[in-house]
């Protein structure tokens, strides 16, 4: 089965011009997402995963600036597109986004049904009657019980899990090609998280929606995603199929991350020495080198490029330069 490329990010560089100095947030990020995939972008604080998502939607706010790169979606470079064009036809239509705190994104003075209705009418030529019907259908699709009642209620009456499902319904109403989910379950209880993740996975399978899931939780990615990209301090360090990256992790940071995660079998947590660098003065060469047990001289001098280490499994690390 040939995988069709839906989104390709090439050499994306983003800087934030702050009073403290220039934060080099994205250092040339490369990413490919195929149609129908459930892709997990994982990394810790400051790695740049959320900035990457914002860049796709051209929502990088001042003082951030996209310095260079290409974001190719359905054959067109979003970074070269007219901003009005993106607003009208891409954002909220072909590419939609859900975030960590759904209640912050829902309008508190409009009832839940109206909000979905609004999204439907704005994006499709559809009568209000048809839109109302579709709204209830969408709420059912996201497993909301008593959808007519919930539609009449307001966001503050919803629990975190329900609010997130209303957001998902809204963001799927336009049948987008790509749904970006930025830490959608981080603020939810484990039992509710399971409900929402199962829903997202079902939606990917049923509707062939492509999902880009952004999270700091590698275990969540392991359970739900097809492919994963690991980011560290503004760099993509490893990408591949989930079982490749987790069962045969190649990058020292990925390995470190795996060892630091509490699991049923681990009796102790192994630390990664040092701490995440300040991106105003990031380390030279490979940004991970100060914390890496395998660092060589070249690691301080040059930035490693992504190499295909086995089919579909890429890693940016000088340990593998000669093993192509």
């Amino acid at each position: 089965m040939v995988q069709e490329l839906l989104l390709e990010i090439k050499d994306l560089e983003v800087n934030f011009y702050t009073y403290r100095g220039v934060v080099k947030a994205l250092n040339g990020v490369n990413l490919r997402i195929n149609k129908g995939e459930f892709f997990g972008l994982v990394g810790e604080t400051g790695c740049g995963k959320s900035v990457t998502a914002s860049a796709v939607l051209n929502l990088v706010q001042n003082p951030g600036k996209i310095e260079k790169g290409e974001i190719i979606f359905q054959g067109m470079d979003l970074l070269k597109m007219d901003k009005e064009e993106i607003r009208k036809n891409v954002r909220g239509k072909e590419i939609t986004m859900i975030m960590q705190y759904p209640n912050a994104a829902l309008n508190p003075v409009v009832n839940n049904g109206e909000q979905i209705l609004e999204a439907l009418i704005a994006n499709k030529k559809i009568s209000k009657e048809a839109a109302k019907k579709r709204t209830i259908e969408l709420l059912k699709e996201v497993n909301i019980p008593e959808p007519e009642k919930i539609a009449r209620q307001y966001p503050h009456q919803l629990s975190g899990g329900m609010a997130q499902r209303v957001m998902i319904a809204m963001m799927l109403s336009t049948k987008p090609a790509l749904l970006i989910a930025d830490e959608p379950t981080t603020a939810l209880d484990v039992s509710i998280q399971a409900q929402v993740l199962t829903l997202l996975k079902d939606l990917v399978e049923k509707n062939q929606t492509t999902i880009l899931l952004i999270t700091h939780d590698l275990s969540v990615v392991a359970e739900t995603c097809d492919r994963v990209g690991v980011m560290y301090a503004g760099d993509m360090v490893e990408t591949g199929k989930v079982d490749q990256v987790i069962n045969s992790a190649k990058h020292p940071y990925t390995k470190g991350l795996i060892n630091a995660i509490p699991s049923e079998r681990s009796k102790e947590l192994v630390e990664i020495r040092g701490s995440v660098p300040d991106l105003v003065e990031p380390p030279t060469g490979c940004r991970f080198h100060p914390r890496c047990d395998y660092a060589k001289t070249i690691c301080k001098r040059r930035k490693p490029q992504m190499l295909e280490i086995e089919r579909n499994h890429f890693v940016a690390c000088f340990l593998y330069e000669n093993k192509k």
Partner: protein
Amino acid sequence: MEELIQLKEIKKYFPWKKQKYVKAVDGVSISVNKRDIFGLVGESGSGKTTLGRVILRLIEPTSGSVFFNGREISKIKKIDKTLRKKMQIVFQDPYSSLHPRKKIKDIIGSGLRTHHMVKNEVELIEKIERFLNLVGMGKEHLYRYPHELSGGQRQRIAIARALILNPEFVVLDEPTSSLDVSVQAEILNLLKKLREELNLTYIFITHDLFLTRIITEKIAIMYLGKIMEYGDTERVFRNPMHPYTRALFSVIPRLDAKMRSKKIILQGEIPSPVNPPLGCRFHTRCINKIGAVCEKTSPDLKEIEDNHFVACHLYH
């Protein structure tokens, strides 16, 4: 094993609107042995944070007793300073629990001054430096402000602040939930080390079950103000008995595919603690519900195997 803390039928009801109550903690009895790390696990509304505060008498219990070193401290009118020194707390959010306008030196040192534990400025600085080193930081941090530190560093300061008063017992309320995974590992290893070195007893509050296996010896799983299951951490992990515990275990995301089993996805939402279900709190979402007995009678905690208690009619 000597008992340090005993809770007998602790209830905490917060008044809410007209004659209604949020029954945050609704009848909890546990005992914590000296030098144990006791895990209190639960989701939102379970009552774990309220219970942690009640033990320290930061919040007064509505009813029930708290015993510390054999002495009933819940009935004392005002907690004296000596007692306060012996029990400390580290909060979840390192960003809001440190005073943003105080220097690290003053954040850590103010307790020492209040309790007259040092004679002069020199001794104060010496002691603060010693504790900074203990938590893996240095004297260069003495005159900095919290905003200059990372989350992990701030949490270390919070730990130093709690420990410098030489307490016997520390409540750790989700101490690593706001931190990155790699930082969490450092902080947990530090806490374990300090427990050994300083002979401490911890109550470790968390929503993360796997964390408890790494750090706790005993564990209590709470739901809507009551304890569902409780006992030696190893036993509870090897043989989870309560349907809620089993559901929780099944839905926690796991890195290792081989360790995953069929997920018990709990339907519906966690009920409101203002109107908790009658009978067993969990019956509205329980896949093993027997029938009327679950709806009418709240099951007691019963010892099903050595050091392993469950509150469930399935086992009565």
